[in-house]
């Protein structure tokens, strides 16, 4: 609980009081589970509302006359075309079109955007964005906020009880409901839900109010991982990284059509080439046969024992009731949806290529 060198969440004392078990993730000491346990926390989120402390992730405000131009250069994004309140899933790419982070960008106003960056990449991302800021009359400002997610079919009702009305928000839109607050209808579970950044003092009051509600319980990072895995959502550093690109990761949908063949954003040339040539491997869902999970790092082979891919995330899906995994296989195999195999401690386990998500998305699209 007192790992040296790990950053501590501003609300750590609340998690301690709630009986959380902590572990290190992306340089942060994070609540992994609470006394209810990962299984109950996961299922509660799918049925009611799970409250997650995601303050390890970073809100970065990008503002100024050149804000849209900056984002359109740094990301494969048409930032000037994003309407106010709209959120877009996008990336920071390397020059070789590797994914150096995945982001959500929301337009707050004519010259202001909110960027949500992953914990382990946030400092690098802010520095990277700043490199372009000077020449473009824009400001890049990482914010000190508590960041919470409330996810599940009863999330909106719990927020309403706590005094936050969400009626106007649909999936992938966001706004600033109060000074210093940022709220979007989005998440990492496949459920309807919200992510809310707010000052620490407000957060303490807000969390207390939410937890008075029986529909709401704290949910730790372990269930956050099993929820996103069932939802087929990528974890940066595992399922996507600088070694993978949006084509092989199956994330081209996040890039506007026009930018798939033109544009001068960072990584454009390599991306256009990758699109034209086709990716040699593709990200797929994998369903192991039986009950034994196949974990990240497992090598996938075909029926002849030839290596054809790898597992990048794997675990057990409490809602679907079987093991689930995400990985990469060679493009012809991905298309054929064939069976592949993994060796787990000497046992050969068959995995079927399975459509993603494993658990249906239940977003409120309006």
């Amino acid at each position: 609980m007192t790992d040296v060198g790990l950053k501590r969440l501003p609300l750590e004392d609340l998690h301690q009081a709630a009986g959380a078990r902590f572990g290190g993730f992306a340089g942060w000491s994070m609540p992994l589970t609470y006394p209810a346990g990962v299984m109950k926390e996961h299922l509660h989120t799918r049925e009611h509302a799970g409250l997650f402390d995601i303050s390890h992730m970073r809100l970065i405000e990008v503002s100024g006359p050149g804000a849209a131009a900056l984002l359109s250069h740094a990301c494969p994004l048409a930032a000037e075309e994003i309407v106010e309140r709209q959120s877009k899933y996008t990336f920071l790419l390397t020059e070789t079109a590797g994914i150096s982070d995945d982001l959500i960008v929301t337009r707050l106003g004519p010259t202001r955007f909110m960027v949500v960056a992953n914990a382990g990449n946030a400092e690098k991302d802010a520095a990277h964005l700043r490199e372009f800021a000077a020449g473009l009359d824009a400001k890049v400002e990482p914010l000190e906020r508590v960041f919470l997610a409330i996810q599940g079919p009863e999330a909106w009702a719990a927020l309403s009880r706590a005094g936050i009305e969400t009626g106007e928000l649909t999936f992938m839109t966001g706004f600033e409901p109060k000074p210093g607050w940022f709220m979007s209808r989005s998440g990492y579970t496949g459920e309807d839900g919200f992510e809310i950044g707010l000052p620490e003092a407000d957060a303490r009051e807000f969390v207390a109010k939410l937890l008075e509600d029986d529909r709401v319980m704290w949910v730790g990072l372990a269930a956050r991982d099993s929820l996103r895995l069932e939802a087929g959502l990528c974890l940066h550093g595992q399922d996507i990284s600088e070694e993978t690109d949006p084509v092989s990761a199956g994330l081209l949908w996040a890039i506007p059509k026009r930018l798939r063949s033109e544009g001068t954003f960072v990584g454009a040339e390599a991306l256009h080439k990758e699109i034209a040539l086709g990716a040699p491997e593709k990200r797929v869902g994998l369903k192991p046969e039986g009950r034994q999970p196949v974990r990240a790092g497992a090598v996938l082979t075909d029926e002849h024992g030839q290596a054809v891919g790898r597992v990048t995330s794997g675990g057990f899906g409490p809602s679907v009731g079987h093991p689930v995994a995400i990985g990469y296989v060679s493009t012809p195999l991905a298309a054929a949806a064939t069976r592949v195999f993994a060796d787990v401690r000497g046992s050969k386990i068959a995995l079927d290529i399975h459509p993603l998500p494993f658990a249906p998305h239940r977003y409120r699209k309006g």
Partner: protein
Amino acid sequence: MTQTYYTEDHEWIRVDGDTATVGITDYAQEQLGDLVFVELPEAGRSVKKGDTAVTVESVKAASDVYAPADGEILEANSALSSEPALINSSATGDGWLWKMKLSDKGQLEGLMDEAAYKNHIG
């Protein structure tokens, strides 16, 4: 007359004559969290103290359970194949892992009794 010993790796071993039942402690199951799969040993397999006898898988990770002494596996708890969560609900009862015949009871000398184990986990 049975006697229960504990290892530093959070296993319990309940000894009755020259046979023993082995499982993980309540503390260990709490640390591991909800278990979803148990890889059980074959009856008849010989194990040496420190060998991996069983692997338990939680939602997040796989963890090995070591043989606390030399011997031969007599039986694995087959109920765990369909219900691994028995280890969470009853780590020292219905959630036992395997029974074994001990070949060197002298190895038990170095293990902890309940009071020492409680002290070990603080």
